[in-house]
């Protein structure tokens, strides 16, 4: 790009931000991850008032304000891509080398989508409505990456 000003004094300072943090998954979040890790089951919670099924699970229904934390339901390991993006840059904190697909996946039986990686398909072939299934990780990290990624159903 042509600049219409003198750029001889312009330069870039490179930095590297180390960011230490602690994340507590909570009771509901921990139960969600341990079920994936130990039983290879994806669990959600249902609101008994409006019937909505939340995945990932949460404590309170966003619409009814009902306490939904103990209404566990088991979901299918299959679902549908309802939205997606292609990550096209590399950075250390990202889970895969670019390009890779981050998709919103609505599991069969759920009413809310969860975000995860889709592999086994070229990024430009991914489309809304693509049927996918979960592949569970062999090595646990005690995170949502205990589902390694999703792959196309066919």
């Amino acid at each position, binding site marked *: 790009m042509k600049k219409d*000003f*003198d*750029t*001889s*004094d*312009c*330069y*870039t*300072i*490179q*930095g*590297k*931000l*180390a*960011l*230490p*943090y*602690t*994340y*507590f*998954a*909570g*009771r509901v*979040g*921990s*139960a969600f*991850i*341990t079920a994936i890790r130990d039983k290879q089951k994806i669990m959600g919670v249902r609101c008994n008032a409006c019937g909505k099924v939340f995945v990932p699970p949460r404590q309170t229904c966003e619409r009814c304000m009902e306490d939904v934390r103990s209404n566990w339901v088991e979901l299918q390991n299959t679902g549908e891509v309802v939205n997606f993006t292609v990550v096209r840059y590399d*950075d*250390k*904190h990202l889970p895969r080398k670019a390009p890779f697909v981050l998709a919103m996946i609505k599991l069969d039986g759920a009413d809310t989508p969860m975000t995860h990686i889709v592999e086994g398909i070229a990024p430009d072939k991914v489309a809304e409505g693509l049927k996918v299934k979960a592949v569970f990780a062999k090595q646990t990290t*005690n*995170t949502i990456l205990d589902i390694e990624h999703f792959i196309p159903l066919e």
Partner: protein
Amino acid sequence: MSEFFGIKVEDIFNSMQARFRPEGASGVNKTFGYDITGIGKWKLIIKDVKMTLDKTDDLAGCDVAMETSGETFVGINIGKIDAMAAFTSRKLKVKGDLNTFGLTSRMFQKYMMPDQGIMPEQELLVLKKTISVNQKFATGPVFGKFLKALKDKKILAIKCPQCGRLQSPPREVCAICRVGNTEWVEIGPKGEMRMMEYCFYASPDPLTGETRETPYGAIGILLDGCRDEEVFWHLLRPDQLDRVKMGSVLYGKVSHGSRLRPVWNDNRTGSIDDIKYFEIDE
């Protein structure tokens, strides 16, 4: 037999002997009657630190007796229902002094479901991590010129062509007059202490994530050649925090602060850290 909260009324009575705590029963010589509607009647006798429990139809001679439903009785025992709330809402009726029943809470251990106690505590997940994020700061032409000059131990300010005020670090536009700044002036490098913030909490440096040691002094210095509010922000030498004198201008009355000089880093890269800090010029 009907269950309430997954528990039979009989389970609670049948486990009483096992849950009995003699140390809680010393000095109590009372007879308690339980009439659980539609399920049965029990009579509990506490005497000489011993208990006897009979299922009987005859609750005559009890010091105190309750009449309630199976649901309320089980609920109170497992802590799902508040006894006082049940009493005031007439779900629990008592013949005699209600407080006498309070004695039983000392005499028995809490009823536990058969699988309670052996159930493992839920595993709770905590993730501790340090992520590394690459950062870039593009100087632009004006800030770049200022930083480059620091390499040569020069502090530059930019001058507004309209109001004449100096800004350092420089900005491309004078925000008061809204005209482009054009003229460069060298200021300092010595100056006069104006004010200091005594900082006890350091937020991470956005370029490195490191936090500097606390307490540190963030100071405003009126560098030579500047006037009024044209102060330059930097750090004070950490061991001089309590020795430095602040200055002020109040209603035209000037109070002079300590004279300060910059301490330059040997290895200068064109960054604000090329000045280590300012120290008292003595």
